[in-house]
């Protein structure tokens, strides 16, 4: 079984976000980047599929040289090969998906795994765009999956429950937290990753369909009313919720 996992290199969850000089992207200096957390679940699932069915796991990332750090981590966790689609510019989801789809087509995977979204732009659309571009079915926000002969049965999160979806293979699966517990790279894995290849090629150019006009910080909250705990405070809170906020 051939598994392709797409991984993204994103600011870590604690990063302080500052607006960059261009007014449209963030200031990258001083921000730590890491493997997108949802992509770790995707990668782990891919490795487990290989362990069960044999085959190989190929990790792909689109971006600049810094993305190699994330690809090295994927290799250290156990991916067999990594591909960096190089692009120093800014792309929208469509342009990212276009270049990924073009590369993935040549790899002919049986299963294509992504994290359910990247925690930078939070678009949650690249995986499904790739699926549509490749004419493949997809299942999003998957917390449980089982691969059977020529098909997969997935549990996906929906509002208020889980939807069980059956899909033919090949398919695109979007991993959600809860799908598995990702392994830590072992020392042996980290050493081995150093000698595994990262293939570099230019990302295919594509049109931009969504243009960023301007980025800003969200408006801050005006100071709230803080009460000290006693029975009167609870009564006052109930009154505020009822009379001022009018929410209960």
């Amino acid at each position, binding site marked *: 079984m051939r598994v392709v996992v797409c991984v993204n290199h994103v600011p870590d969850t604690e990063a302080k976000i500052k607006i960059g000089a261009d007014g449209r992207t*963030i200031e990258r200096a001083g921000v730590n980047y890491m493997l997108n957390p949802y992509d770790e679940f995707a990668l782990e699932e891919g490795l487990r599929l290989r362990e069960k069915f044999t085959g190989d796991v190929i990790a792909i990332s689109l971006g600049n040289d810094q993305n190699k750090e994330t690809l090295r981590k994927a290799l250290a966790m156990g991916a067999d090969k990594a591909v960096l689609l190089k692009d120093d510019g800014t792309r929208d989801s469509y342009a990212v998906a276009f270049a990924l789809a073009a590369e993935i087509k040549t790899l002919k995977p049986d299963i294509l795994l992504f994290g359910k979204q990247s925690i930078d732009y939070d678009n949650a659309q690249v995986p499904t765009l790739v699926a549509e571009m490749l004419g493949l079915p997809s299942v999003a926000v998957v917390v449980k999956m089982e691969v059977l002969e020529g098909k997969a049965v997935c549990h996906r999160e929906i509002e208020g429950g889980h939807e069980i979806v059956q899909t033919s293979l090949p398919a695109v699966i979007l991993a959600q937290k809860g799908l598995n517990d990702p392994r830590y790279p072992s020392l042996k894995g980290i050493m081995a990753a150093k000698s595994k290849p990262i293939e570099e090629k230019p990302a295919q150019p594509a049109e931009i369909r969504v243009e960023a006009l301007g980025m800003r910080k969200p408006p801050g909250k005006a100071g709230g009313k803080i009460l000290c705990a006693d029975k009167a405070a609870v009564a006052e809170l109930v009154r505020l919720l009822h009379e001022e906020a009018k929410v209960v």
Partner: protein
Amino acid sequence: MNILVFAEQRENRLKKTAFEAVRAAYDLGAQLGASVSALVLGSGSASLAGELGAYGASSVIAVDTPDLARYSSTAFAKVIATVAAQKKTDVLILSASQMGKDLAPRVAVKLGGGLAADLIALTVRDGEIVGTRPVYAGRALLDVRVTTPVKVFTLRPNVFTASPVDGTASVETIAVSLEEADFACVATDVQVASGRPDVTEADIIVSGGRGMKGPENFALIEKLADVLGAGVGASRAVVDAGWRPHDEQVGQTGKTVSPTLYVACGISGAVQHLAGMSSSKYIVAVNKDKDAPIFQVADYGIVGDVFEVLPELTEQLKKALGK
């Protein structure tokens, strides 16, 4: 200019987010001089059409077939794109619900359009549609413009108000032919998690963190939630500790929520948590530590012990609400 809204229904009931999307489309249409059509899919969907007129759709298109009784992203996307093309749609709007997020990218590709996802505002600036979307888990806002002739937008649930307008809609039933190959993936079953509203849909959320000290103490959270008819949320720390299911996690690696009221109990307010809930309209925080970051985003806070405050709050609200 033609605006089409995909109005989501499940179990033959239109979702609140469908009304939100139709009303937002109506407001956009008023600025652009465009009328709004709504599309409902599924078995028995024609009977739902009338309701959408009251929120601003001037026409409703129903693809009412038992083939669409079960959700299939591949088949639904084909039907939506077919109808959108047939109706010469310029702007297609969906909710950024789990179904909308699943469909919008597919339909956008089929229509050759760009997709601006998960918008919290949709405005017209100098004759051009501008969407605003939170990025970096809400730590920044990005204004975007779709450059293609056909534009697709998804709207974050619970942000746009579903208030009715004085209107009625004409209803048209359209048949779209589907083949077996269109059902490459299909939902076979739905397992309902709990009787409580899901955090992404709840109007009120009561959420607990590490300050609750143990899974057994979430009974206090649940009691308060029951009085308020609220959903139950949890911080990442308590989900990772296995106290609560992941479905309830609010924050960057959980769900992003925008309820009218968010009650944070024993939650300190780590950056990841704030990212997921700071767009709530009113935030109440109960925490022992007066310096906890949660108080910086709270509209109302009580510095105190959750084990004393929560039972008292539950009692007083019960009385106030006559329960």
